């Protein structure tokens, strides 16, 4: 998928474990894992808002668009 989730990068920058983020944003660890590993198909604005608030960042810091390289 051309949308890359950089949640792990932001967590590393803020030195925050996923479990702590899970408690602060009130989202289950399994759901945050789905988001972190890029398996998620959609993200709610409310989730994005809560994550940005806790990590003190912009949505663009968490989500990134990358062009897909053509498959040979």
């Amino acid at each position: 998928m051309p949308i890359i989730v950089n949640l792990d990068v932001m967590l590393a920058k803020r030195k925050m474990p996923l479990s702590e983020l899970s408690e602060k944003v009130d989202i289950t660890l399994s759901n945050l894992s789905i988001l972190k590993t890029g398996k998620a198909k959609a993200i709610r604005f409310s989730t994005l808002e809560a994550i940005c608030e806790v990590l003190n960042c912009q949505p663009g810091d968490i989500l990134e668009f990358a062009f897909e390289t053509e498959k040979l």
Partner: protein
Amino acid sequence: MKTEKILEILKIVAWITFIGTAVVSSIQIIAFVISFISPDTAKHIKWTNMNFANLRINHVREYVFVSSFLIIIAILNVQVWQKVKDVLTKINLKNPFSMEVALLLEDIGQLLISTWVVGYIGENYIHWLAKHIDGVSGGLDISFQYLFCAGIVYIISQIFKRGVELQEESELTV
């Protein structure tokens, strides 16, 4: 609760029909094979009021064609009921949208279409034979109901597939 009971009853009915169609098609295949050793066995192949024994003795090639149509339809019927039985066994009302069930429904649709196609060709062949050979009558009795059912089941399978996709999307929305 009521729906679950209906599904349970349908499951039992599907199992019985599956066994029944399997037995009938086995008899047809065995009778067809044995008829090459003993032509009299051909009279046990029953479908319409056609005289299969006469066909076997006097027109072997035509007999092979007609019997093949009957056997193919019987096997397709067994497969349809096997898939129906599988759908009723695997469906879970708490979480009904599964790709496995959607694919089974799609298979049922395709099998019904195949049955109709084979039946349609077979019926026309028998009608053609009836004009040329005495004692050949009737047909395979494959009506447009098969095509109608196939269409309905195929549409349901596609809706089911979309339901599976939506459920998956909903589960993967954070």
